[in-house]
C-alpha cells in the first residue's frame, strides 16, 4: 500500500499548504461584524470548473495509485510471470504525447483568439487520441494472439485491467473533447471555448502522465525503481 500512501501524502501536503493560506489561526469569535472585516475573495480566482476538474483528477489519481499498489502487492506473489510488452505501446505513447501537445497548442491559440488553430488542435488531439485507443486494442490483440490471455496469469489480468481502465478514461475525455470541438465550430463564446479547451488540455496532460506512470509500471521499471527506494530506506 506504499504507493497509495505516498500519493495521499502528496494530497495531504497540498491540502495542508492550501489550508495554511486560509487563516486557520483566525479567532472568529473576536471578529466584530463591521464591513472592514469582510475578507475576500472567498473562493479562489481560478474558474470553478477548473477546480472541479482538479478535484476530479485527484480522485482519478487516487484510483490509479490504488491499482498500482494492488499491482505491486500481487506481483510479490510467486505465480507472477511478467509478460512481454507489445512494441506498439511505444507508438501509442508517442501518439498520446502528440495528442497532448495538440491540445496544448489549441489552448494557447484559444488564449490568443486564433480560432482556426484551435479547431486544428482540437481535431488533431481527437484523432490522435482515437489512434491511441486503436493502438491499445492492437496491443490487446497481439497479446491474445500470442497466448497471453486474461486469466492465464495475474500479470496479464492486470495489464488488461489497467490499460482498459485508462482507455475508459480517455474515452470519457473524448466525449468532452467532441463537445468542445462542436462548440469551436458552432461559434461558442470565446471565453467559454477557451475554458473548455483548457479543461480538455488539463485532463489530457493528466491522463498522459498516468499513462507514462502505468507504462513504467507494466514494463517493470517502476518495480525496479521502488526496489531501489526500498533498499535505500532499509
Amino acid at each position, binding site marked *: 500500500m506504499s504507493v497509495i500512501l505516498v500519493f495521499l501524502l502528496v494530497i495531504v501536503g497540498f491540502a495542508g499548504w492550501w489550508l495554511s493560506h486560509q487563516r486557520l489561526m483566525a479567532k472568529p469569535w473576536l471578529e466584530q461584524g463591521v464591513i472592514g472585516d469582510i475578507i475576500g475573495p472567498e473562493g479562489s480566482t481560478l474558474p470553478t470548473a477548473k477546480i472541479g476538474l482538479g478535484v476530479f483528477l485527484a480522485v482519478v489519481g487516487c484510483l490509479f495509485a*490504488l491499482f498500482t499498489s494492488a499491482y505491486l502487492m500481487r506481483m510479490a506473489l510467486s505465480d*507472477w510471470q511478467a509478460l512481454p510488452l507489445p512494441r506498439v505501446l511505444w507508438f501509442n505513447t508517442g501518439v498520446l504525447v502528440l495528442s497532448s501537445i495538440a491540445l496544448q497548442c489549441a489552448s494557447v491559440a484559444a488564449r490568443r483568439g486564433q480560432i482556426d488553430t484551435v479547431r486544428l488542435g482540437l481535431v488533431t488531439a481527437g484523432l490522435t487520441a482515437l489512434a491511441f485507443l486503436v493502438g491499445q486494442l492492437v496491443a490487446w490483440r497481439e497479446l491474445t494472439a500470442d497466448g497471453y490471455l486474461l486469466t492465464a496469469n495475474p500479470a496479464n*489480468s492486470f495489464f488488461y485491467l489497467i490499460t482498459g481502465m485508462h482507455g475508459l478514461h480517455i474515452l470519457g475525455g473524448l466525449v468532452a473533447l467532441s463537445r468542445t470541438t462542436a462548440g469551436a465550430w458552432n461559434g461558442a463564446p470565446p471565453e467559454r471555448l477557451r475554458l473548455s479547451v483548457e479543461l480538455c488540455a488539463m485532463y489530457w496532460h493528466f491522463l498522459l502522465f498516468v499513462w507514462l506512470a502505468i507504462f513504467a509500471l507494466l514494463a517493470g521499471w517502476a518495480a525496479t525503481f521502488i526496489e531501489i527506494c526500498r533498499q535505500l530506506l532499509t
Partner: protein
Amino acid sequence: MVDITPADAVPPAEVAEMELYHPHSWWTKYVFSQDAKVIAIQYSATATAIGLVALVLSWLMRLQLGFPGTFDFISPEAYYQFITMHGMIMVIYLLTALFLGGFGNYLIPLMVGARDMVFPYVNMLSYWIYLLAVLVLASSFFAPGGPTGAGWTLYPPQAIMTGTPGGQDWGIILMLVSLILFIIGFTMGGLNYVVTVLQARTRGMTLMRLPLTVWGIFTATVMALLAFPALFVACVMMLFDRALGTSFFMPAIVEMGEQLQHGGGSPILFQHLFWFFGHPEVYIVALPAFGIVSDLISTHARKNIFGYRMMVWAIVGIGALSFVVWAHHMYVSGMHPYFGFFFATTTLIIAVPTAIKVYNWVLTLWRGDIHLTVPMLFALAFIVTFVNGGLTGLFLGNVVVDVPLSDTMFVVAHFHMVMGVAPILVIFGAIYHWYPKVTGRMLNEAMGQFHFWVTFLGAYLIFFPMHYIGLMGVPRRYHELTATTVMTESAHDLNAFISIMAFIVGFAQIVFLFNLIWSIRHGREAGGNPWRATTLEWQTPETPPAHGNFGKELPIVYRWAYDYSVPGAKEDFIPQNMPGSFESSREPA
C-alpha cells in the same frame, strides 16, 4: 492558488452570481430537478426507503438469534444474506447517502450562502445513479439464488464460491455492480460538495466562519472521494475474478473435490483494499455527525461552541489520521507484529482529537441555557453513545485484546454503538432540527419525545447486553448456537431480550415516519427561524427556501456562526448576516 488578502484590504467585487437553471415543467422541477434542495429530499427519501429494508432484515436476524429453531424460513443461507444486506445497506446506502447526499445537498448551499451547488447538472446525475445503484442492489433480492451472503465485508475467496449464497449466482455480481455505480454517483455528488464549499461561499464567509456542520460534511466528502476509489478497485477486481475467472484475490482452491481454475491470488490484498476504504468510511459517517452535533448543541444551549478552532483542527486531523489505521480491522489476518503495533498506535492516537471534540461539547453545555428540545435530546444522547462506543474501541484497538474478542458479539456491540446508533441519533436530531426549514412546520413534540426515549433507552438495552454476551465468548456470524459451553441459559435469555427490544425500537421508528408525514400538513407553523439560530439557512426570505435560496441579494456574512447570548446584544442570538458590532465582555479564548 488562494491568495490571502489582508483584513483591511478593499472588499473585492461581489462574488459572481451563478447562472441558475430554471425549470420549465413539473418534471424538471420535482423529478429531474437540478435544485440541491430537491435532490437532498430525493436522496433522503431513497436512503430512508432502503434503510427500512435493512431494518426489517435486522428484525429477521434477531428473530433467529433470539429464538433459534423457531422460524423455519430463516435458513443459514437466508441468515447470511440478511447480515450482508443489512450491513451494506446501513453503512453505505443509508448512512453515507443520507449524511452526504441528503444533509450535504440541503445544508451546504444554504449554510455557505450560495444559490445552489456549483455543478447542478452533475448533482442531479449523482442522485439518479445512486437510485440506480439502490435498485440494482434491491433487485438482488429477486435474482435467482437471492442476494449475496458473503458478509458486508465481501471477503474473498468465500464471497464468490458455491457454498456462499449468491456466490456463484447473481447475488455477488449485483452487489459489486451496485457498489461500483454508487461510487460513480457519489463521486459526482462529492465533487459538488467540495467545490461548492471552496468556491461558492458568499462574501465574508471565510473558512473559519463556516458552521461546523459544513466543516464536517466537507472533510468527510474529501475523505470519501479519496477512500471510495479503494472500494472501487476492490470491486472491479473481484468482479473480474468472479465473472472472468482471473486470480487477483483467489488462491488455488479445491471446491467439492474439483480444482477451481483460480490460483495464486491473495485474499489479504482484498482486505487491504477494502479496509483502506472501510476505516475512513467510519469517519465519513462520523464527521458530519460531529459537525451537526456541534451546531445542535450550540443552538439549543444558547451558547457559542467551545474551542471552535480546535473543533476545526480536530475534524481535519481525524480526517487525515483515519487513512493510516485501516489494518486494525485485520489483526487476526496474521500480520507482522510490528505492523500490528504501528496500527494499534495510530488507532489510539486518533482518540486524542476525538476526545478533544467530546470535551468541547461538554464544555459548550457547561453553564449553557440548555433547552431540552427533541433535537437537543438526540444530540446529548449522541455524546453519551459515542463515548461509550469509543471506549470499547480502545479495547479493540489493542492487538492482544482484539484477537480473542474479534470474532465475538462484542465487536458487533462496539461498532453498532459507535457507527450505528451514534450517527443515527444525530440523523434524527438533525431531522427534528431542520424539518421546520424544509417543510415550514414543526414535527410533533409529543411523538418526538416518545421516539427519542424509546430509541435511546431501547438502543442501550439492545447493545449493552450484547457486550456481555460477547465477553462471554458468544461468537458473531453464527446462524445458530446450540449446546455449546458459551451459550449458557442466561446468554440465551439475554439474546431473547435483545430481540424483543430490537422489535420495540424498530416500531418506534414507525412513529417517527408517521410524524414526518403527519407534520407536513398538521404540524405547528414554524416560521422562518423557530430555534432562533444564527446560521444562514435560517435567514432565508422564504421558508421553505425558494429556488435560488436567498431572494434577490446573497447575504453578506459579518460574523461567525456561534454568536449566542452575546452580552450587550438585544437578542440572545446574532445571525451571521447581521452587521454591526456589539460591545462584548467576551474574553479571548
